[in-house]
């Protein structure tokens, strides 16, 4: 067995095995969505998930989803007042006079922190 063959067998193969194991260990973590950690800043866009109307058929749901779809386009869905600002000319009174809010619908609720 020549020197090259010896090096390949006793260095090359172990290096290959270590590299393979390393890739298998690190690859899933690199591809995963970063995990939320309490106390970290949350710089994602606000998202609002509602059940798909086509897959939900209940007597009480009825046809009310038309209003729900309209609700998706309202500026307040962005989660802040920034989206409802109509422009620089109306910027002075825009934060004080938001568009007429829908009537209050909440009857119960809880607030919690962690």
């Amino acid at each position, binding site marked *: 067995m020549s020197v090259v063959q010896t090096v390949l067998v006793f260095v090359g193969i172990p290096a290959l095995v270590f590299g393979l194991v390393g890739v298998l260990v690190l690859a899933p973590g690199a591809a995963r969505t970063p995990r939320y950690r309490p106390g970290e*800043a949350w710089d994602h866009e606000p*998202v609002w*998930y509602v059940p798909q109307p086509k897959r939900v058929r209940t007597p009480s749901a009825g046809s009310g989803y038309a209003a729900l779809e309209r609700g998706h386009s309202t500026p307040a869905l962005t989660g802040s007042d920034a989206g409802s600002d109509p422009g620089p000319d109306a910027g002075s009174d825009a934060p004080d006079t938001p568009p007429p809010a829908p009537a209050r619908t909440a009857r119960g609720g809880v607030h*919690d922190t*962690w």
Partner: protein
Amino acid sequence: MTPGETETVAVPATDDEPRPRGVGFGPLPPDRAPFSPRQLWRLDEALTMSTRETGITFSVYVGALDNPTHQHAEALHAQLGEVAPDAVLIAVSPGQRTLDIVTGEQSARRLPDRSLALAALSMRASFSSGDLLGGLVNGLRMLADQAGRAD
């Protein structure tokens, strides 16, 4: 770095090179979706199943809320339109570490505040350990169980 910063600040030439982004270090890019497709699938299943079983429209909001957060959550609930009386909104602000659950006129009868508090307790436990999606899915399941089946 943004172009606006490079205009006003003299930047050394070496900083123009793109910095390698380590996995898990630094702030998350804002365009990154908060949940992976697999997580979204789980959330979709939980939302659809709980809504179908109970007849209550469950919806989940994840994002920043204006202070006081509960009033903002109530305003979001009002935007649900015609389904609002039958709807339950779970509003989570991970950055502010707040959780708000809002019920409408009909859904409040089936889910009194005591039931909401129990679900919120379970969700809070998951959130505080960093499991945002697990908390949401478990909370939806608990709320659906407590609301019971559609009449």
